[in-house]
């Protein structure tokens, strides 16, 4: 009996703690005006990203994040007169950080999907990405999209559009990774049959790994945008203004060329 009461009380406590957490997030989502104000007064602009996605975001020296998205973020920070701080975490973590207001915006080659648009707001789309299939040259199992049957093992990065694509559209087995490099290692060791990912990082990856190759055929295309907290229109407007200017000036293509031809 005593034990039963203890268990009951313990579970009550857990529920209580959990509801405390919920309460905190609710007040936050309910009061975007308040968070906007704190954004305004603070001199730092926080960008959440996952630096394993060259040329959009990667590190050269192991600590400083650089890339196309970082160049864009620098332009945004300059336009807003703020100092840019980059938080390098996991991809799904970056999406969560922007929802929770831990970061002002997330720029990590994020595709706009319906589910995501429900929980965060997106800027204008600034680049088109082609999703391609990366295979191991020697394996020769996968030669086109049609080969992606129930036997094929497909590697993706957790939370990316390719991840949802494989889950929703294909019957093949799915292996989720937090970094593309881990997927690439498994592909080299023939632990998976292919990786579905963005063409630009894929090209960088194939350049450095002779064993790998990209199939000609495109799986699908989608567009990248910058994510901000739901309801944070001020931040969104500032970002959109900069993005539209950069697109008009052709600066984004320039950034991509800068980061791909080294």
């Amino acid at each position, binding site marked *: 009996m005593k034990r039963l009461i*203890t268990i009951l*009380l*313990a579970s009550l*406590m*857990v529920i209580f*703690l959990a509801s405390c*957490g919920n309460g*905190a*997030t609710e007040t*936050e989502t309910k009061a975007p005006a308040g968070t906007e104000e*704190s954004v305004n007064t*603070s001199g730092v602009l*926080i960008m*959440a990203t996952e*630096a*394993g996605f*060259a040329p959009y975001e*990667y*590190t*050269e*020296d*192991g*600590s400083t994040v650089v890339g196309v998205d970082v160049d864009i973020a620098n332009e945004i920070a300059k336009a807003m007169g703020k100092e840019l701080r980059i*938080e*390098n*975490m*996991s991809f799904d*973590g970056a999406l*969560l*950080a922007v929802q*929770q*207001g*831990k*970061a*002002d915006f997330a720029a990590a080659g994020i595709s706009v999907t319906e589910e995501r648009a429900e929980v965060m707001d997106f800027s204008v789309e600034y680049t088109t990405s082609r999703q391609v299939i990366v295979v191991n040259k020697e394996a020769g199992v996968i030669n086109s999209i049609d080969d992606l049957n129930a036997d094929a093992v497909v590697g993706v990065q957790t939370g990316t559009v390719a991840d949802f694509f494989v889950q929703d559209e294909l019957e093949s087995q799915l292996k989720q990774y937090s*970094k*593309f*490099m*881990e997927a*690439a*290692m498994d592909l080299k060791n023939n632990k998976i049959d292919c990786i579905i990912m963005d063409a630009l990082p894929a090209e*960088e*990856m194939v350049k*450095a*790994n002779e064993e790998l190759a990209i199939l000609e055929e495109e799986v699908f295309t989608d567009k990248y945008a910058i994510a901000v907290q739901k309801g944070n229109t001020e931040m969104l407007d500032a970002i959109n203004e900069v993005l539209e200017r950069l697109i008009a000036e052709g600066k984004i293509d320039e950034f991509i060329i800068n980061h791909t031809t080294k």
Partner: protein
Amino acid sequence: MSDILYKVLIEKDRYLAYLEGFKTTLLLSFFSVLLGTAIGFVIAIIKYVTDHNKSQNAFKCTCNFIGNFICNAYIAVIRGTPVYVQMLIIYFVIFSNRETSPLLSGVVCFGINSSAYVAEIIRAGIEAVDGGQSEAGRSLGLSFLQTMIYIVIPQAIKNILPALGNEFIVLIKETAIVGNIAVLDVTKAAMNIGVATYNYLPPLLLAATIYFIVVMILTKLLRGFERRLAKSDRR
């Protein structure tokens, strides 16, 4: 070989990233250990006192029951959930303020996580001291507090230390997951460099070596300390 080492360490000053990460790992582990030991010690004492106090006073009894229950629930919840999940909850939900540094979230997370284990280690260490010792202390006219401070705890430390050292070692290695909340530790630096050089293994091996050396040094230190404490043992 030297080519790989050059790429992983020297090129673009990459060794600086390891050093920065190493510093963060040490800071994080050190403060987590401090916080964990402090909270753990308090909980162990509360648990010990409430377990052994057989007062007939109704008010004291209730206090004991509540104190004991809170400590037990705390330990049960912390030990019953993975540290990774705790870290995500602390970083994204509890410290949802954007100005909170990720490192602080890390210290709080690992400190709290470790405190539950430390509490059990310390409590077990105190309880392992023969009951006759505290009886003797009380018979000689020492108060409960004096008995604890001068007789029980000095003997308990000898029981506690090896297990506590083990917990510290585990904690240092556990901090490797902190890269997921935007803290640049050794593991994260190694992963970044692995991604940058398209060669995952050498930086990871290097990170493993760094952890190994730190743990070896810590093991040596703890062994020395234990030997020093065992000086007057007759066994």
